[in-house]
């Protein structure tokens, strides 16, 4: 990122003043150098605790190429009654002759908890009209998210951060009634879902889908919801009717009623895993086939054994995206639509009672 030449700040200010200042900065920049073109893809409104403001800004800097066009960072400071604002215009790079460089606007608003229930009145004048607005509130503040639902189209959540899987699913279901929900816990499982789909894609293996009788998902201890979503996904796609999960020595056990037979579901914590999400998957079928996927160097390590005990192992290639990459993917997904997630949530709700 390079400074495109525009910075403005003011203490005890108002949205109208901020908006006017922003427009002035954009006009000045256009007059200074027309080779800089404002990006117009997505607004991101992030609500964060004031003391973690820098950390969140750093995370947003590291999202790779998936930067929102306009980021409005609302930093909540206990006891604050006024709004301070800083506006910065940055560019991807210096524009080269004959080419253009994209610019983005970053607005940082310091505000207090009293502002959150009416946050829409503060944010609405500041978003770029006619492009999608994504809301992300990594430190809680659900009242702020609720206040913004009327002016946003997408909410970014990370179900892993909710206190427990049941409240995570309940919150996601509630939000999904009104806006499109992008869940980072769901996105972390994308490579796993892709690989399971690929494993059963060849016509000779596809009949095995109807013979699945056991699914074991290992997950980081705080990422149980990732396992629930994975089992919910299989249930919704394969027409299983899952029952409630029950806890036994830290493992969640359950059964789903399939068309041919019941499917045993096991969600097992895996303390050795450092990153949030899934650690491994095992799928067994009634005909004796077993598929296992585990994290490994250079991708996922896949192992298939057939009913005769013949084992085949290979690596499904893919670089780790890291948590910054996952957040970038969440921002990118705000402009796409994945119909599978909502159906997954319905099954997950049943599994969590």
């Amino acid at each position, binding site marked *: 990122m390079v400074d495109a030449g525009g910075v403005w700040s003011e203490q005890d200010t108002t949205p109208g003043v901020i908006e006017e200042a922003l427009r002035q900065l954009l006009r000045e920049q256009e007059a200074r150098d027309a080779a800089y073109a404002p990006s117009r893809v997505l607004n991101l409104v992030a609500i964060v605790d004031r003391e973690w403001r820098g950390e969140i800004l750093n995370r947003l800097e590291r999202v790779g190429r998936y930067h929102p066009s306009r980021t409005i960072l609302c930093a909540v400071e206990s006891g604050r009654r006024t709004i301070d604002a800083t506006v910065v215009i940055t560019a991807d790079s210096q524009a080269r002759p004959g080419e*253009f460089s994209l610019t983005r606007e970053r607005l940082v608003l310091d505000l207090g908890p009293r502002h959150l229930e009416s946050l829409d009145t503060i944010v609405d004048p500041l978003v770029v009209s006619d492009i999608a607005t994504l809301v992300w509130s990594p430190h809680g503040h659900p009242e702020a998210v609720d206040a913004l639902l009327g002016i946003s189209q997408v909410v970014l959540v990370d179900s892993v951060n909710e206190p427990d899987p049941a409240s995570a699913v309940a919150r996601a279901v509630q939000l999904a009634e009104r806006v499109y929900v992008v869940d980072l816990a769901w996105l972390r499982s994308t490579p796993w879902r892709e690989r399971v789909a690929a494993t059963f894609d060849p016509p000779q293996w*596809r009949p095995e889908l109807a013979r699945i009788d056991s699914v074991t998902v290992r997950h980081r201890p705080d990422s149980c919801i990732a396992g629930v979503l994975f089992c919910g996904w299989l249930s919704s796609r394969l027409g299983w009717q899952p029952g409630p999960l029950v806890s036994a020595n830290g493992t969640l056990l359950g059964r789903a009623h399939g068309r041919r037979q019941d499917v045993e579901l096991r969600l097992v914590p895996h303390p050795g895993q450092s990153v949030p999400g899934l650690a491994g998957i095992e799928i067994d079928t009634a005909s004796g086939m077993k598929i296992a996927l585990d994290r490994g*160097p250079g991708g996922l390590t896949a192992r298939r054994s057939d009913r005769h005990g*013949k084992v085949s192992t290979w*690596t499904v290639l*893919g670089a780790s995206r890291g948590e910054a990459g996952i957040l970038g993917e969440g921002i990118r997904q705000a402009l796409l639509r994945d119909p599978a997630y909502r159906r997954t949530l319905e099954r997950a709700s049943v599994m969590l009672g």
Partner: protein
Amino acid sequence: MAIAEQVNPLVEGLERLPVHPTTLAIFGGTGDLAHRKLLPAVYNLAHEGALPERFNLIAIARSDIAHDDYRSMARESISQYSRTPPDEQVLSKLLEQVRYVPGSFDDDSVYARLGEELKQFDDEAGIVFNRVFYLSTAPEFFPLIVSKLGEHGLSDHDDAEVRVVIEKPFGTSLAELRELNPQVLSVFDEKQVFRIDHYLGKETVQNMLAFRFANGLFEPIWNRNYIDYVQITAAEDVGIGRRAGYYDQSGALRDLVQNHMLQLLTLLCMEPPVTFSADDVRDEKVKVLHAIHPPTDETVPNIAVRAQYTAGMAEGKDVPGYLEEEGVPDDSHTETYVALRLEVDNWRWAGVPIYLRTGKRLARKITEIAVQLKPVPHLAFQAEGSVGVQPNQLIMTMQPNEGVSLSLGAKIPGTRMRIRPVNMEFLYGTAFLSQSPEAYERLIMDAMRGDATLFTRDDEVEAQWRICDPILQEWSHEDGPLPTYPAGSAGPEEANRLLSEGQRWRAI
């Protein structure tokens, strides 16, 4: 219906659909294209997790080197040219699945060894991999390799899909094409053949389809009643570099017009396809090509201009003329610039000139399509004191800044009603988060998937040659010196004679 016959229920919502396990065999695996494009593209697909679940690569080339030597070479190519900085673990795992078969393409033992390597991959995995043979060699080897693949029973398999990707140029004349096509089709079915034109793999070119068929705004005016003429420009600011050997045999018409520029023309002029399936899209493109009358000896001078660049200045530096470039014969008649005037003689386009021009060492690098609309029928505005009302112009830019620009007449602020053109501009880069994948990444995946939409069909290539071949034939009979243009200029003066009265070339 049995579940095996149904659509895989697990793919809903997935952006990347499963591709059957595949072994990609690259003939010419040590060549420049493999080095700069193919191997980096394969790595990037691996990095993104987009390759088939199981993937192997076999390189075939003359150098007598071992598997490990080739892996080291591939690692170097990928490290140097990949658009993503390589992840060491992904790269190492990818290279574990790479093998090398040395030998010349006419040597039967090469194909026997290739067959063994393919079978070994299958046996080790306990499955049969699909096979994609990528012919990244000099074109004279295409018939030989295809024929040897057939002789050695490698052109089909009972339990797997076998496909062949053939790089351009697919023939260098109509006669050559008519010889090559039957040779290829005597071994492979047309649905197995993927003739690559990497231009079609560019997002910018595919965006043409979205622009035309996803927007109701333009379709009503997309015809001879509203469009005055069209100019398609593919200008390069660079010279021929070290490619004299290739370029002097090829020239601008074969290098860019016969394939890339005619593809742009077809996408611009085609009727909406019924579906976006490979054959529906290609059927419509072929109809456009068939509607262009092949030039005759008499018409070539009126519709085609060629030229060579002379010494001049580019990017502030003195640069040599084409005949002074290293490796170019002193008496070369190869054109570095070509301009054409074509007409698509059908209901929609009859009477609308479509101008094509391309050249080396022009003023700047740009690829664009300019659609000039007809002027408004009555001018009630003052022309005095302004440039007046100009016809609208719609510009679709492919590179460097992909976008769409529409010129509109607007009132100049003031007390008088004076009009001047202003531009409404849209840049794709401002509206999308994603970076476009390299064309070769898209095309390699499509070939592995069996989707031929972005590849040229046999009748399509033949129709392209039917337009270009008579021009080459006629030029081959002309002995005099070619028209020239100084390096760094907009091209030769002679190109102006193709234009109708009142028309002019857009500034490059």
